[in-house]
């Protein structure tokens, strides 16, 4: 990598590291694991800097790299998670009673989603990627993103209602 490219890389990372780390935390729910995923992403970013630099939406591209790095890590036998098949009933079915739904519960709800669906939720609703950008980032069709977003959206709506409820108490 040329010196000017390396300077660009450093500037990019300095400006985005905190946000990337928070995004990774939403996926991992563990700061150490989040740092691992960010490191893997930055390593790939460094190796393919020229290509990423030419991307039309560089931030979306890098967030997609982050989500794919995390999904790859899930496939490693020692990192594989066992996704619970159902969300806790109380949070989804009766959001009005979910005043106790604090941040740990929201993170637990995110954890309960299968990995790819969790990645979709984070890319769509935290990173603000479009359906098409999310589809390209994860290598799936737009239809898959839409269907996997639907359940995640239910979760976020329930959480948002509970937060609103808490704030008006």
């Amino acid at each position: 990598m040329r010196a000017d490219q390396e300077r660009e890389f450093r500037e990019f990372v300095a400006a985005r590291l905190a946000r990337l780390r928070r995004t990774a935390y939403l996926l991992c729910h563990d700061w150490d694991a989040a740092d691992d995923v960010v490191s893997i992403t930055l390593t790939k970013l460094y190796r393919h800097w020229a290509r990423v630099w030419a991307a039309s939406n560089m931030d979306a591209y890098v967030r997609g790299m982050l989500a794919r790095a995390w999904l790859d890590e899930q496939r490693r036998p020692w990192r594989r998670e066992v996704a619970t098949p159902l969300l806790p009933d109380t949070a989804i079915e009766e959001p009005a009673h979910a005043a106790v739904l604090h941040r740990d519960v929201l993170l637990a709800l995110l954890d309960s989603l299968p990995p790819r669906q969790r990645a979709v939720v984070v890319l769509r609703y935290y990173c603000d990627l479009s359906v098409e950008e999310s589809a390209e980032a994860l290598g799936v069709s737009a239809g898959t993103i839409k269907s996997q977003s639907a359940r995640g959206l239910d979760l976020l709506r329930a959480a948002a209602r509970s937060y609103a409820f808490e704030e008006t108490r």
Partner: protein
Amino acid sequence: MSYQDLLDRAIGDTEPPTTVDVDRLIARERRRRGRRWAISAGAAAVLSVLVAAGVSLAPDPGPTRVAVSDRDPALRHLDAAVWVALSEHASAFGGLTWNVPRDESWSPSDGALWVSRLTGGGADAGPYPYRDILTWRADWLSDRGAALVYGATALIPVGRRVDVLDVSIARIGPDSSLGDLDCELNADILDGTSYACEVTSGPRGERIRSAHNGGPFDVEAIPVQPRDRQVEVVVVRPDGIRVDVGARILVYDESAPSLPALDVAQAEALALDARLDLPSP
């Protein structure tokens, strides 16, 4: 409150200091690149000697979009071997021609991660927005410590449908987890579906994992998209060479058959082909 605000609140404001060290990352990548330059140069030198001695390794891979002479001799050898094996084991792919844009940043000069791109039937399926997706398998092997990785990707139009075929050859260490083949991958979410997987042994002591998703099936009531139907075969040879062959649907079209053009038997024959090999270190 936006969903972004909500999720930000869920993360909280008390983050521990990061352990990500950009300086150390850059230093490590500089060392890695230096080592891989050395390996690549050595392999190319060995093959140049073979070519100069008149050892014909494989026929020319056919018409190209860039002059074959522009390419690394080691890469030419691998391109040709993959092309011949494909033609023999999967005749549907006999019409593939090489399509290697000049701007590919993963050219041989980039080190030991080599990726070639094929296109099928005389038609060009690109430019394609999934460029990074096309190379994920070779990237994945490289990122997990394979010493040398070659990857070839083909985009294959089947009517208006587009399949992706990828072939990766990697040299893995004796203790590498890349040599551990099992069928647990995805088993948790695909249990009860038409996902099938088995690990067997090959005629020369290879270990083979063969898997396919036949679809249609549901995972938690979410219909799996046609592009999720795929065939994947991994072969690990006793000498530490790992060959991955995968075929999947990238662009679905209702009027075309809904299974990838490569079946499991063809993928196994391809992955077991001894011509798919890497230069010795």
